[in-house]
C-alpha cells in the first residue's frame, strides 16, 4: 500500500486541517476494513486447535482466496450502497471510491 504518491499537485504550503482530517478519516476506514478482513479470514481459514505455528498449505491457499472474495464483497456492497443513493455524502477526495481503497 503506497501511502504517498510522487505527484504533489499543491505547492509546499501550510496545513489545511480539513484535508488532513479527511485523509485521517480515510486511513481510519482502511484500518477498520483491514482489521475486519484479518479476523474474517482467520475465522474462515485457520484451524484453532493450534497444533503447529506455521500456516499449512490449505490455510495459505484459503487465505489468498478469502482476501480475494472479501474484496469482491466489498466492491459489491459499495456498488449497492451507491446505487441506493446512500452514498450521496460519501466518496471523499483523493481518488477514493466505493469498492477500492
Amino acid at each position, binding site marked *: 500500500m503506497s501511502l504517498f504518491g510522487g505527484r504533489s499537485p499543491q505547492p509546499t504550503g501550510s496545513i489545511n486541517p480539513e484535508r488532513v482530517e479527511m485523509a485521517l478519516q480515510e486511513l481510519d476506514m482502511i484500518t477498520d476494513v483491514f482489521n475486519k478482513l484479518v479476523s474474517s479470514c482467520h475465522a474462515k481459514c485457520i484451524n484453532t486447535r493450534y497444533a503447529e505455528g506455521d500456516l499449512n498449505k490449505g490455510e495459505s491457499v484459503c487465505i489468498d482466496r478469502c482476501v480475494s*472474495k472479501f474484496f469482491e464483497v466489498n466492491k459489491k456492497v459499495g456498488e449497492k450502497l451507491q446505487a441506493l443513493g446512500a452514498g450521496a455524502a460519501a466518496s471523499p477526495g483523493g481518488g477514493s471510491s466505493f469498492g477500492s481503497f
Partner: protein
Amino acid sequence: MDFSSLNPAEQAHMTKIIEKKQMQDFMRMYSNIVERCFTSCCNDFTSKTLSSKEEGCVSNCTDKWLKHSERVGARFAEQNAEAMNAASK
C-alpha cells in the same frame, strides 16, 4: 435526547460535528455490512471468485441489513419520543 439546553452557537457547533460523525458512521456501517455479509454468504474457499449463489446472497444480505437498520431506527425514534414524553410529565 434533547440538546435544547445548548445555546444557538453551541447548537451550530454540534451540527457541524454531527455532520462529520455521520460520514464516519456511514463508513462504519459500510464495513460492518461487508464483514457480516461476507461471513454469512461466503463459505466455499475452493475458488477465489464469488459464485453466483454467493453474489445473490451478498446482494440480499445488504438489502436486508439496510431495511433492518431502517426499521430499527424508526422504532427507536418512537420509543425514544415516548420515553421523553413520559419523563417530562
